[in-house]
């Protein structure tokens, strides 16, 4: 395990959350929430404040208007009081001109709104000789002037102020006019009819007038300060504008203005004047942001119109709101920063943990985690993280330790396995009279099974199969001891049961662990096919005849070797017939389990043996072992599997013993032809074979060998070709050539060569097989166990 991984990604992997960081996101959410709450309350407050402000503004305006109206009314009432005084004065004092002038002048002087005042009489009433008699006092720049009115150029009887008052018989206000006769100012006249009791009859004798200067009234109205640009104006009952800050509008008629102008202000205004129910309403005039309030002056029937600008009305509020909004934004920013700072502070340990996890993930387990004193969730997390890290560290250390130990043991076991396997003989004898093959498939690295075989002499072969109790190194060591003992003791030529006894004794001597081995050993006489067997508590061998009939040998079963000093081993003789196969095996075969828990029992073993009874011995062994693996697929092999099969073939057809054998195994490479040549030279010399026969053998084997090399193996892989030579006592040389190539019957394939054909007809090929047929006495082909077996025989003596 690599403790530190240095990676280029390191830099990239650094923890940078930025906008995705907890603190940022938390702050954003927080701010959004705060903003929402603020906004809702702000809007509510705004609406509420607006309402209140509007109400207050209206109240203020109304109050101002009322005050103005009251002021104006007071003025008018004062003005209206004057004629009554004058009337009483005229009727009671019967004044002369001087007295009258004095009174009139006094009125003009004392009443600030009064521009002028007059007393006009009916013809010949005040002064018997005068048609006109009207006295008029008014203001001029140089002071108060009194003059007579009336004359051909100024017939006051027709004037509105006179005629209307006379006609109405009660006081009237005239429409505004420029008094061309008196002052050149716009004025309205209050005309009061004057009556006198003449012979018990109320008789109209003249009119008393008071000219009210509208500019003076206007000054009072102009005093109405309505915010910055707000203003008030006065409209007469007939719609004439009596006062307006815009002096061009003065004396204009609102109805006319409404009709002429597109200005909606006057249209609405005209509407209200026409329909008095619409009055006193605060409305917004047209598209302008101004509001208008109209009040009627009760004494005159005039309208006071107040225009007040909403914008200014709320300008303070708007300023306040702007101020509030700025404050709010700054507060929000401050809250945002504070939130970020707080959450960053809060999550700092978390970020440290993340950083630490990252480092740990890259293999840095020696990292020191910051100790946190806090007891909140993060503190707990950090603490458990430290604990986890400690445990992880411990665990990894333990793991490393055990892994190293395990690897060490495993490598030692592998070496032991190699040594153990090296002890098992792998070179199987190549003899014509028998075939022998064995396999040991260990369950664990070092197993307790063993097999062995070796020649005692030319005709006697020792073989054994055993199973040491237990597995692993002790079993394999014990197995080595057993093998060595057999190798050293069996050479003495003693009977088998004595050898077993002896070895048993030896094994018992120093065996503190009481290990034991079950074993079947045998010595076969290859000439006669007689086999001596001795069984020490092992699985009973099987024997299969040429037809594939399998039976178990019923041997006496003595106790396993190594348990106690024992002398009851028995040697039992069995006669093998040519074609018989002796099968020695360990319980790893019959006790192999499949996934269902069934045993690969003896019956299955017998079945597989019978199925492949025509195969040669190595193939048979391999077939059995692969069938066991197929049976136990998916299940771990529990025990060693050992199988040794000896196939006995009688050496010679005449029944006479083989006196010489020689076998070679060469690969399918043409360059190896010299091995055959050398072997033939060798046996020709040793076995006393004539040079002619030797050369013929050479020719024949070269033909067959080259044939195999060229045609038998389409796969181009290396294959081994076995050639076995044997010489019988009757002087018959037998050569068996075995290859595992594709089916090819040499005899069937050969064509007759026409020896007497003319040159033109002679074929270039085909001579080889002709040689074989010509030079050998017997030739046979057999397909055996997936192999081509060619047997050649030749009498050489």
């Amino acid at each position, binding site marked *: 395990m690599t403790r530190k991984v240095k990676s280029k990604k390191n830099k990239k992997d650094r923890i940078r959350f930025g906008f995705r960081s907890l603190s940022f996101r938390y702050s954003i959410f927080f701010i959004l929430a705060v903003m929402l709450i603020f906004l809702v309350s702000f809007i509510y407050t705004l609406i509420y404040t607006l309402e209140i402000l509007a109400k207050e503004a209206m109240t203020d305006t109304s109050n101002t208007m009322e005050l103005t109206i009251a002021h104006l009314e007071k003025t008018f009432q004062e003005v209206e009081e004057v004629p009554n005084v004058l009337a009483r004065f005229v009727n009671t004092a019967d004044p002369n001109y001087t007295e009258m002038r004095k009174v009139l002048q006094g009125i003009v002087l004392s009443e600030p709104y009064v521009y002028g005042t007059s007393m006009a009489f009916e013809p010949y009433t005040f002064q018997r000789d005068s048609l006109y008699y009207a006295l008029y006092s008014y203001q001029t720049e140089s002071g108060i002037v009194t003059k007579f009115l009336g004359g051909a150029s100024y017939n006051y009887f027709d004037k509105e102020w006179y005629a209307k008052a006379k006609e109405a018989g009660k006081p009237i206000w005239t429409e505004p006019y420029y008094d061309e006769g008196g002052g050149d100012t716009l004025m309205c006249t209050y005309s009061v009819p004057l009556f006198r009791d003449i012979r018990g009859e109320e008789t109209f004798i003249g009119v008393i007038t008071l000219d009210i200067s509208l500019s003076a009234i206007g000054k009072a109205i102009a005093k109405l300060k309505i915010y910055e640009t707000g203003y008030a104006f006065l409209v007469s009952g007939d719609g004439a504008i009596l006062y307006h800050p815009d002096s061009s509008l003065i004396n204009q008629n609102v109805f006319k203005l409404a009709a002429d102008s597109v200005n909606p202000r006057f249209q609405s205004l005209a509407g209200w004047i026409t329909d008095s129910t619409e009055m006193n309403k605060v409305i917004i005039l047209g598209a302008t942001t101004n509001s208008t309030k109209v009040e009627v002056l009760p004494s005159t029937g005039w309208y006071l119109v107040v225009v007040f600008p909403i914008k200014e009305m709320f300008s303070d509020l708007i300023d306040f709101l702007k101020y509030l909004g700025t404050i709010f934004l700054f507060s929000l920013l401050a809250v945002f920063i504070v939130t970020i700072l707080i959450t960053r502070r809060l999550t700092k340990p978390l970020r440290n943990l993340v950083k630490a996890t990252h480092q740990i993930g890259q293999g840095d387990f020696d990292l020191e985690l910051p100790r946190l004193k806090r007891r909140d969730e993060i503190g707990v997390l950090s603490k458990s993280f430290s604990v986890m890290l400690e445990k992880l560290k411990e665990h990894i250390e333990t793991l490393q330790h055990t892994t190293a130990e395990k690897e060490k043991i495993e490598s030692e076991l592998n070496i032991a396995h190699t040594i153990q396997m090296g002890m098992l003989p792998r070179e199987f004898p190549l003899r014509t009279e028998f075939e022998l093959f064995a396999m040991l498939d260990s369950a664990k690295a070092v197993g307790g099974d063993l097999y062995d075989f070796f020649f005692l002499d030319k005709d006697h072969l020792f073989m054994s199969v055993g199973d040491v109790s237990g597995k692993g190194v002790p079993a394999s060591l014990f197995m080595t001891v057993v093998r060595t003992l057999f190798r050293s003791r069996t050479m003495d030529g003693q009977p088998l049961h004595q050898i077993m006894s002896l070895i048993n004794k030896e094994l018992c001597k120093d065996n503190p662990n009481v290990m034991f081995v079950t074993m079947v050993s045998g010595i076969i006489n290859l000439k006669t096919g007689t086999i001596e067997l001795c069984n020490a508590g092992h699985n009973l061998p099987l024997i299969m005849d040429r037809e594939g009939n399998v039976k178990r040998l019923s041997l006496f079963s003595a106790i396993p070797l190594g348990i106690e000093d024992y002398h009851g081993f028995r040697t039992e003789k069995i006669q093998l017939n040519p074609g018989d196969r002796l099968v020695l095996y360990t319980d790893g075969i019959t006790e192999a389990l499949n996934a269902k828990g069934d045993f690969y029992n003896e019956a299955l073993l017998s079945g597989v043996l019978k199925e492949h009874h025509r195969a040669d011995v190595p193939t048979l062994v391999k077939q059995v072992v692969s069938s066991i693996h197929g049976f136990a697929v998916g299940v771990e092999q529990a025990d060693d599997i050992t199988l040794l099969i000896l196939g006995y073939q009688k050496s010679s057809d005449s029944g006479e013993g083989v006196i010489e054998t020689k076998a070679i195994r060469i690969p399918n490479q043409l360059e190896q032809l010299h091995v055959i040549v050398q072997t033939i030279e060798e046996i020709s010399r040793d076995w006393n074979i004539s040079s002619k026969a030797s050369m013929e053998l050479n*020719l024949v084997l070269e033909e067959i060998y080259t044939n195999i090399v060229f045609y038998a193996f389409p796969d181009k892989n290396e294959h081994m070709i076995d050639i076995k030579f044997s010489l019988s006592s009757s002087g018959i040389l037998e050569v068996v050539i075995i290859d595992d190539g594709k089916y090819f019957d040499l005899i069937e394939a050969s064509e007759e060569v*026409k*020896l*007497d054909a003319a*040159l*033109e007809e002679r074929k*270039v090929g085909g*001579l*080889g097989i002709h040689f074989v047929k010509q*030079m050998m006495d017997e030739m046979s082909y057999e397909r055996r166990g997936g192999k081509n077996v060619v047997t050649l025989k030749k009498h050489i003596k």
Partner: protein
Amino acid sequence: MEITEKKERNCTVVSISGRLDTTNYSVLEKKLMELIDSGEIRLLVNLSGMDYVSSSGLRILLMALKRITMAKGKFVLCSLQENIKEIFEISGFTNIFEICDNEEAGKKAF
């Protein structure tokens, strides 16, 4: 196997000695075909030194004989060892090859 050739008055003598088998027949094949291709179609093959010939070797001799015969030349063998002669007999080659006992007799055959 060794192959030597020497130019005689009326033929070319090719001497083959040693072992002629599957592993080396192609050397002889090349040699003989070269000679035939270069117009040497009067060949005397001396086999006095040859102690082994396999069927593949015999095949080359047969091919050479066929080609020279077609080219209206002459192909003669001489000085065969006893066991080689037997192989020739078994092969039926004694019927189709002109075989002389020694090189002198062989040269006279041209």
